[in-house]
């Protein structure tokens, strides 16, 4: 097992690059990012991040050698995957797998058809070595390292993550999946994902995160960049179930060119603190951006999530549907931005935020920022907060359904408009996670 010393300095950043045997340009990228990380202040406008101690984290840890088949995966990983239902999902849906064990992808298999079509699907470390021109052209151009403290941190110490390249006109019908988990206590995971969808192509990328529970705090700071070219269509689905002690601070951004479609489907169930606002830059005429999100905040959880839609071109459309659930003192925050630039003629934007509170202790806040600089723009915003009524629980009780099951049914019903957009296996898993949460006090 190879790992760096606890804490972070320039030497450790260089060591990560050395261990990975990276080209010089990547080493420089990391070092420059590290300098910016040091200068950047902690964001103070959102969730409480004061307890993060950057010096108590191990930034790089390699756990297993790469394996290309399911059989060769370590037993421990398989067991965890079994519990969360991964093998079944794989059998039916997988077109290619990139499962991350700690900071390194250990399992990476691509179906032959994908190769034939010219689709590249591999982990980022491999991409840096095998496809340096592509990586250099795009990496850090949508999420530059000076974007925020955590994008800088990720750029300095990133490890693993997926690289997906879909050539012009190629439509990948099956969802491409990647599984991430954190396995060592106080170990930060910093995966980096880059997706390039060339003109007229289609892909659905799916990531599901689960992690066992640890006592110490841990950090997950990922960066995802997606380039959706003219007439292309990308859907990116996340089912996030990090353990409750994890800070999940993720920067996700996509650029949609002319008539391109970018869809985020984002489900945040786990983690202690999440700050995540996937963005779509609607850069080309007629581009569409969608965000469908589910956030669940239970005891000691703060989900601070939302979406950013930036209308930069005429006839662009964006739609945000955010469903938040808070229980047992949890806090669900919707924080979103819709920006319609001058000249984005006939832009259309709609934002719907619905919150379901399961008790009086829990909290929800909505911060929808709208910045409309174009007169012809059409903008709609709706927000609702509902408390689960005793009458509904009684109605279900009169059908023999006990309270915990009734809550599960009602919460799953509430998130259904988003949950039904997720492939079946995942939505079943999600539904099971919700039901498990409802059983807790």
């Amino acid at each position, binding site marked *: 097992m190879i790992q760096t010393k606890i804490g972070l300095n320039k030497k450790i950043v260089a060591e990560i690059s050395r261990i990975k045997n990276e080209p010089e340009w990547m080493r420089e990228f990391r070092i420059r990012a590290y300098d910016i990380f040091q200068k950047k202040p902690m964001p103070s406008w959102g969730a409480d991040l004061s307890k993060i101690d950057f010096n108590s984290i191990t930034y790089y840890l390699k756990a297993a050698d790469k394996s290309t088949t399911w059989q060769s995966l370590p037993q421990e990983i398989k067991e965890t995957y079994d519990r969360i239902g991964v093998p079944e999902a794989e059998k039916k849906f997988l077109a290619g797998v990139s499962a991350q064990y700690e900071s390194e992808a250990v399992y990476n298999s691509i179906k032959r058809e994908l190769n034939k079509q010219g689709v590249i699907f591999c982990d980022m470390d491999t991409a840096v070595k095998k496809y340096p021109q592509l990586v250099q052209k795009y990496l850090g151009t949508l999420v530059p390292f000076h974007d925020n403290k955590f994008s800088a941190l990720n750029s300095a110490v990133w490890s693993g993550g997926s690289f997906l390249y879909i050539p012009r006109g190629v439509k990948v019908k099956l969802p491409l999946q990647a599984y991430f988990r954190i396995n060592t206590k106080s170990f930060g995971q910093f995966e980096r994902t880059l997706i390039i969808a060339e003109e007229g192509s289609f892909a659905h990328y799916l990531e599901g995160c689960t992690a066992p529970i640890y006592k110490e705090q841990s950090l997950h700071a990922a960066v995802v960049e997606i380039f959706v070219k003219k007439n292309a269509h990308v859907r990116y689905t996340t089912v996030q179930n990090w353990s409750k002690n994890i800070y999940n601070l993720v920067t996700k951004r996509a650029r949609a060119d002319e008539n391109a479609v970018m869809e985020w489907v984002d489900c945040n169930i786990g983690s202690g603190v999440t700050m995540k606002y996937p963005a779509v830059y609607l850069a080309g005429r007629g581009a569409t951006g969608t965000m469908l999100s589910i956030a669940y905040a239970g005891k000691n959880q703060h989900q601070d999530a939302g979406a950013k839609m930036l209308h930069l071109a005429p006839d662009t459309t964006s739609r945000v549907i955010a469903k938040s659930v808070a229980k047992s003192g949890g806090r669900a925050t919707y924080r979103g931005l819709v920006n319609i630039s001058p000249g984005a003629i006939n832009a259309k934007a709609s934002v719907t935020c619905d919150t379901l509170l399961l008790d009086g202790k829990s909290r929800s806040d909505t911060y929808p920022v709208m910045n409309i600089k174009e007169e012809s723009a059409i903008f709609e915003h709706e927000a609702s907060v509902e408390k689960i*009524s*005793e*009458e*509904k629980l*009684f*109605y*279900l*009780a*009169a*059908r*023999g*359904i*006990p*309270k915990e*099951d*009734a809550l599960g*049914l*009602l919460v*799953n*019903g*509430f*998130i*259904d*408009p988003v949950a039904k957009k997720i492939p079946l296996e995942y939505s079943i898993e999600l539904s099971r996670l919700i039901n498990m949460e409802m059983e807790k006090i």
Partner: protein
Amino acid sequence: MISIKNLSVSIEGKKILNDISFDFKTGKTYALMGPNGSGKSTFASAIMGHPDISYSSASKILFDKRNIKNLSADKRANLGIFLSFQTPLELPGVSVFALLRLALEKKITPIALREKIKVYAAELHIKEELLKRSLNDGFSGGEKKKLEALQAVMLTPRFALFDEIDTGVDTDAIKIIARFLKKYLSPKTTSVFITHSTRFMRYTQPQEVLVIKDGRLVKTGKDTLAKKIERDGFKNL
């Protein structure tokens, strides 16, 4: 089967039912009548176990001779008590199928459940499309009550309370609902229909009529009692 003894209940400190005693017999059909606000719905809620209801210490609800006064509503339902709501609740994102699948989880496979629901829905003239939608969300009065009837039959209760299943429903639908319940509820099921309509009683044919007024059980009698009430009202009871 259910024996009510000295039932006195209050909601938020306000006394609603006063010392009601009555024996419901297995397989018999009852009509429960009374002026608005007399406590009929509270009577049904008290038997079902609404959490807001407080029972006097003397109150007993004996189900197969066991006092169920302190059982929660879901436990009573699992013993075989059912309540059809006067105003069925809207459940966004929850179809009748999802609800019944959960309620009958251990009793029937999802496929058999779906088939059964379809058959009953056809009998009740419920559009199939309605079965997939959020239960009661945007449904008409008749549709809501038909789905209450469907749930009643699916759950095979031993003691079923129907709180005004005939209100907000057009004449044709009333007939359909009443006939459906007669046909598909087990002959061993004890049914109690809270109603204002003697027409509805012609279809359900209760063997006994109970009248609650000001929280008290003031009169019981045969179906002729219902006709008398239709003619003279409740004032002389």
